[in-house]
């Protein structure tokens, strides 16, 4: 999977590394801003009130 992505990136090794890094940052950004805030209330780690619905 990652090998496939690497092979399909353009440019030499440096350019590919740079693009890979950008992709990783983008994925982390999406996770932190959209996926985790969505998932967090669904998980039982952070209810602090009594009679939480």
């Amino acid at each position, binding site marked *: 999977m990652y090998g496939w992505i690497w092979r399909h990136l353009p440019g030499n090794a440096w350019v590919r590394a740079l693009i890979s890094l950008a992709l990783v940052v983008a994925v982390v950004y999406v996770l932190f801003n959209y996926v*985790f805030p969505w998932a967090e209330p669904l998980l039982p780690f*952070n209810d*602090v*009130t009594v*009679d939480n619905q």
Partner: protein
Amino acid sequence: MKKVAATTDGTDTSDGTAEDTAAPASRRRPARRRGTGRIAMAVSVFGELLITAGLVLGLFVVYSLWWTNVVADRAAAKQADKVRDIWAHEDDGGSGRPAEFDSKNGIGFLHVPTMSGDDILVEKGTSTKILNDGVAGYYTDPVKATLPTSGKKGNFSVAAHRDGHGAEFHNIHKIEKGDPIVFETKDKWYVYKVYGILPETSKYNVKVLSAIPKESGRTKAGHYITLTTCTPVYTSRYRYIVWGELERVEKVDAQRTLPEELR
């Protein structure tokens, strides 16, 4: 895993499907059949997916325990500044409307020296949205909190996060009986003294919020404060409760001199 790979292989090879399915993938590798590359790929993709899942879970921990604090502290600091600003501004202009009743911006600050060195802004409501800003919220549901500013007898019940999102009540277990809890409004210090602690209770135990919290041992109406958060740390299986009773009310002077409990 192997079964999936073998099945994929079985559909591609024309000979001996049953035999292939039974044989482990590792033994077939030297044979270099047509399907072997596909098995290797399937296995490697599966492995990469597992690694990815592990990394995502790791990131989630980082998010929960660090990033939410960063975001919440920023939001709380901004809102606290706003409240302090409004208080200071009202001193100058004297708009007439007491700040403590402006529940939109937060009604005051909690100081619990044994738990946290910071002052904790208190806002209206205990919804996720409010509490995730790194503030404490006073209950409006299921039992409405009685605000100390109202002067009435009742229970001033407050909730905040134990972990993540500011983790304002993280060290609630450090509070002991006799410790002070001070609630600061624009012109009064409400000094409470802790008299009851319930280290573990059900999350459905709404009675702890009652005007007279019987579980704390009190039977008469009074000016109580209740702190609630989740326990044990990093989970929210149970609730941790701390009760305090109003000891005295001090006027805030021009220098906002702290009451002796906070000095």
